[in-house]
């Protein structure tokens, strides 16, 4: 029996974290809703199991998504995660092959060198030592990048890195201590016995030339074991909890569990899966346009984990969803933020250590206030019958040129339609939801639902991506909801809309709620390609920018919005297009005020391109061609 007291801290840490991970997973599983439990069971014993394993290998170990975003950062994460994994794997095999017995306790593999100092002199053993040394060198190179990143984040190509709490710092220090102490401990032992490969061997023999290697090795083995033990015990209290949680998250997500609009165990799992890597900070326009660097999703999730009052963070966000796309863990950041907005003000609670190991479910329940319904003034709706109804939305009413263009297009295509909010309708409810007032939003949703259902329509066309998103996600309508770009695309495909080709250079700005929010990328581009020369920008599709006018953010000032809009417009019009096209009235209004380039909605461009002789006389109507005055 090989034993030494220094293995005790490591063993305590290891068994603690293994038991803890199992207990926590069981707790999360218990808290999942009934359907989600079924989904997870099916996912775990079904086809998605292999997919999950593949994702764990690609993302949790290789960090493929971080590589895509930033090579140096990806190498840092990969060398630490995949390097450590291989070191453990090869170490276990080494202990199994060359050790005194098979199937050893984990500590035998970790401290193999201490218990088998003579190992690795020649032949196959030497090759194996070389591999182990190589892996250690890979990890150490990653560690050096990590330390540099902590001190000068720009070197690894990151503008900002996350700030840490004291406990995080202790855990970080113990993590940083693990590999150097292993290197020195192994080197001293190798130096004393004349073994070791290119790294530990040469360092060892050099150290042994002027130090008593045999005596020096022992304290460093203690240090190695202690830093491992400390790291494991502190792991649940720090951001490193993402290591075990992410595995659970990948299985849950591949089983088809989503955040939805209710807080639950899955939200909790996602909150703990965030590694605070800081990629969301770099992706955020509030960061790179206006220099606000304390409200990004990494900080929101950290605040939720620490039971802080995150109301100000939760509300200071454009809700553009850029971070959702960039998050290497695939956390649904915007839905979590929406849930947090509903919770409103929460009190900061300092928890005892035990409570922090087993936290309560984060409370997402809003404060109950007895208030009478706010919208009882709404008139009872009069039914209009039509197959296609057009809902312009508040913002479209504020940009009459889009509304007029849509009417022109609908008239020209011969579709039988009804304009249900011709004289000004009721808001769709999403602005209230973005302000965290779901109950009030429901009233508006019910009102509009009744209006639409009474019309007996099969298709609902809207001009506003904000309305489009909420109609699809939060209304329980059994009809086809189309954004006007999709509708125009259908008209063109059917042949009921004949268009001229206009030789104009156009770039397209994808609105957040239409693109990332609802996944409509292709139809607007197809329409634009049909009528104009569409050019590429650096910010197409998933990588599109927010215009800055977002209703999601109520905290930033008018000036800051202007800065974001000007920045976005400048980036989009870099190649001097003739028209900056968009498909959202709000984007149009915001961008038009921020750039010299003509900004137009797709509906306006299409309306201009209609080739119908009977529309010719309308073109002379000055009301239709006057450029809409910019009010801001």
């Amino acid at each position, binding site marked *: 029996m090989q034993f030494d007291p220094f293995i005790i801290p490591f063993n305590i840490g290891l068994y603690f974290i293994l038991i803890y991970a199992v207990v926590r997973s069981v707790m999360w599983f218990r808290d999942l809703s009934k359907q989600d439990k079924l989904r997870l069971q099916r996912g775990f014993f079904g086809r998605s199991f292999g997919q999950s394993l593949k994702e764990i290998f690609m993302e949790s170990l290789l960090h493929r998504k971080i590589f895509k975003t930033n090579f140096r950062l990806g190498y840092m994460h990969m060398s630490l995660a995949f390097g450590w994994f291989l070191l453990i794997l090869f170490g276990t095999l080494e202990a199994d092959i060359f050790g005194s017995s098979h199937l050893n306790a984990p500590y035998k593999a970790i401290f193999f060198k201490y218990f088998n100092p003579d190992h690795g002199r020649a032949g196959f053993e030497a090759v194996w030592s070389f591999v182990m040394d190589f892996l250690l060198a890979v990890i150490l190179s990653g560690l050096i990048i990590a330390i540099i990143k902590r001190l000068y984040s720009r070197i690894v190509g990151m503008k900002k890195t996350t700030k840490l709490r004291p406990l995080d710092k202790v855990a970080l220090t113990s993590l940083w201590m693990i590999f150097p102490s292993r290197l020195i401990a192994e080197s001293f032992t190798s130096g004393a016995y004349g073994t070791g490969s290119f790294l530990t061997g040469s360092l060892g023999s050099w150290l042994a030339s002027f130090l008593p290697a045999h005596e020096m090795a022992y304290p460093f083995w203690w240090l190695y074991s202690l830093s491992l033990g400390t790291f494991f015990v502190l792991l649940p209290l720090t951001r490193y909890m993402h290591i075990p949680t992410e595995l659970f998250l990948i299985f849950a997500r591949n089983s088809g569990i989503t955040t939805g609009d209710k807080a639950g165990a899955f939200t909790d799992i996602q909150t703990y899966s965030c590694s605070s890597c800081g990629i969301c900070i770099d992706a955020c326009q509030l960061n790179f346009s206006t220099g606000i660097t304390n409200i990004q999703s990494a900080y929101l999730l950290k605040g939720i984990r620490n039971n802080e009052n995150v109301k100000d963070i939760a509300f200071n966000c454009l809700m553009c969803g850029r971070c959702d796309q960039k998050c290497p863990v695939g956390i649904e950041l915007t839905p979590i933020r929406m849930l947090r907005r509903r919770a409103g003000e929460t009190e900061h609670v300092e928890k005892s250590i035990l409570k922090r190991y087993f936290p309560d479910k984060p409370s997402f329940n809003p404060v109950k206030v007895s208030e009478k319904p706010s919208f009882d*003034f709404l008139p009872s709706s009069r039914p209009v019958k039509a197959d296609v109804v057009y809902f312009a939305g508040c913002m479209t*009413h504020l940009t009459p040129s889009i509304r007029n263009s849509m009417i022109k297009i609908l008239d020209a295509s011969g579709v039988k339609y009804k304009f249900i909010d011709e004289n000004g309708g009721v*808001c769709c409810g999403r602005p209230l939801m973005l302000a965290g007032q779901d109950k009030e939003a429901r009233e508006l949703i019910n009102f509009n639902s009744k209006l639409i259902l009474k019309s007996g329509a099969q298709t609902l066309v809207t001009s506003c991506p904000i309305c489009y998103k909420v109609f699809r996600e939060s209304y329980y309508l059994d009809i086809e909801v189309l954004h006007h770009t999709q509708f125009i695309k259908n008209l063109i495909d059917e042949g009921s809309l004949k268009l001229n080709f206009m030789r104009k250079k156009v770039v397209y700005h994808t609105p957040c709620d239409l693109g990332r929010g609802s996944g409509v990328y292709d139809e607007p581009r197809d329409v634009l390609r049909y009528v104009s020369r569409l050019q590429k920008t650096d910010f197409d599709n998933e990588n599109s920018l927010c215009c800055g006018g977002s209703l999601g953010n109520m905290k930033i000032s008018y000036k800051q919005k202007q800065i974001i809009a000007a920045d976005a417009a400048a980036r989009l019009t870099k190649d001097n297009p003739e028209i900056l096209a968009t498909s959202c009235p709000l984007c149009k209004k915001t961008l038009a005020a921020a750039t010299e380039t003509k900004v137009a909605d797709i509906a306006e461009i299409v309306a201009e391109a209609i080739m119908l002789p009977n529309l010719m006389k309308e073109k002379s109507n000055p009301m239709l061609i006057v450029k809409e005055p910019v009010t801001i």
Partner: protein
Amino acid sequence: MDKFGFAISQQRQIDFEANRRDIAEYISEKEPSFRVCIECGCCAATCTTGNFTPFSLRELLILLKRGENDKVRDNINKCMLCGKCTLVCPRGVNTRNVISLAREAFQDRIKNAV
């Protein structure tokens, strides 16, 4: 004005001694752009809610500044937060945040009273 005849007209004096300006101060502290409002009425002209009911943000903001909070309390929840007023505001007042803060302030006072 459907009643004719003689009546004693109500007092129209603004009593700054009795009025409570704490809500207006709370709002202008958290949303400084509230102070630059010139009460032009663009917000009220474009208002979605104002289309259905005599809700006027301009009026409510004037009342808030005077400290006559009763009418504001009764009406502020009618807003749908659609954001048109913010877009048309010539002074760049973040009206949506002003309304949210006003709601918050009134709700806090309800909670404290109970």
